[in-house]
């Protein structure tokens, strides 16, 4: 049930990210909605759920047109980001506040973009040079943090509703996941 809800949310996020959001891109950089959703999943449900949903969401980004890069690159990047988000949640077991959301998104966006650029360098992709990676990462971090302030609480609330009673206790009880 929870996996199905996560799947629907990811499909929605990827659709918006490739068709509607590019119209409000900043310097060509689109808001990484799928990444933000995955961070929300990681924060809500821990590293395993974050890594698995990250892989699924990244795979969609790799396959859905107009993607034209080697498949698996966003899958790896988002899986790592989701896992990191889950670990961050474990450290501060208190309910997630705006500060933690912001910090998680900054770290996860950096990790995902650097992983994507890293696999590009491994595959000798000529189009990514270091300076460009850094500027676009900067823009993306700013944009993603803004969007995450709205999206992450929504995602965490949504996925919390579809958890079992035990999960809810673990989420609200402050015990580490």
């Amino acid at each position, binding site marked *: 049930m929870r996996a199905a809800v996560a799947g629907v949310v990811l499909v929605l996020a990827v659709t918006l990210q490739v068709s509607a959001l590019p119209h409000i891109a900043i310097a*060509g950089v*689109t808001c990484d909605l799928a990444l933000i959703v995955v961070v929300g999943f990681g924060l809500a449900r821990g590293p395993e759920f974050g890594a698995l949903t990250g892989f699924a969401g990244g795979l969609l980004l790799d396959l859905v047109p107009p993607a034209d890069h080697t*498949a*698996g*690159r966003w899958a790896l990047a988002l899986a790592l980001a989701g896992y990191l988000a889950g670990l961050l949640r474990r450290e501060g077991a208190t309910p997630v506040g705006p500060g933690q959301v912001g910090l998680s998104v900054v770290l996860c966006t950096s990790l995902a973009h650097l992983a994507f650029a890293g696999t590009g360098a491994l595959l000798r992709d000529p189009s990514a040079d270091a300076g460009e990676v850094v500027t676009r990462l900067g823009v993306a971090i700013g944009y993603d943090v803004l969007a995450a302030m709205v999206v992450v609480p929504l995602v965490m609330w949504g996925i919390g509703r579809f958890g079992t009673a035990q999960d809810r206790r673990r989420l609200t009880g402050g015990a580490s996941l």
Partner: protein
Amino acid sequence: MVLRELGAPPTKGVVRSTGVPRELRRRRTVLALVILASFTLITLDARRSPSSPIDPLRNAAASVFGPLESGATSAVEPVNGLRDRFAEMDRLVAENQRLTEENAALNGQLRSAEYARQRAAELDRLLKVAGLGGYTVAPARVIGIGAAQTFTRTVTIDAGTADGVRADMTVLNGDGLVGRVVRATEGTATVLLLTDAGSTVGGRLERTMSLGFLSGRGQVGSGAVLDFALVDVRAQPKPGDRLVTWGSRGSAPYVAGVPIGEVISVGAFQGTFGSTAVVRPYVDASRLDTVGVVVGPPARDPRDAVLPPRQGR
């Protein structure tokens, strides 16, 4: 990670504390599996050959997400129309100050400027270009746009193999060359834009007919430019010179005679391999909407017959 586990405050109950190492092991297994799966995919797809085992997956994804992207684009259409109207308004305000005489007429135009009307006008110009050059064109709309963070400049269009679109076909709009089709599924196609760093087009200078190659820089936004390297050592490009495609053998991937852009500056270095120049493309890749795919090339090369009249630019 182990250190953190040890340093964590003791959790309630014996079951949880003995459960932690197993949970940790499971978590690491999941991470390892996911990373392994990603690298497997990358390895399978790394050669980017047309027979990549990932391609069936791409086709499946396109057939599911094509209608979704199309629907989402239609849903945000009023918002984009609004943005276009604001842009139009700004332009008119600037003109207002200079030309008060034309003000009334332009205001009238503004009131009737609807998104649909703009698209109809775009389609009209597209058909005009197609008619001038003798191309057979399948019209299509842009329904998905690649993000700058993936470092490829690509868009999705809502025409596919069902409309006769195949890989390596030329894509143009009313202004000129847009790019080429790299992949087509039944209902959608992926277009590599001119400005992508991996895009190279053969261009011909309108004035001297000399040939060269245009390559993108991967830039985004309306200021994106192309690099033009001339093949002919003696050819001297000048700012303002206009370029058309010289066409590939068998008209794939580029048909001949499509307007590309204008030279805006000439390189300082007169290298051994001919001059270089910077070219501004006629097509603004950041504002693409209606495009056409050349499904039937002209019987003969139209040369520069489809270039816009000089005073218009």
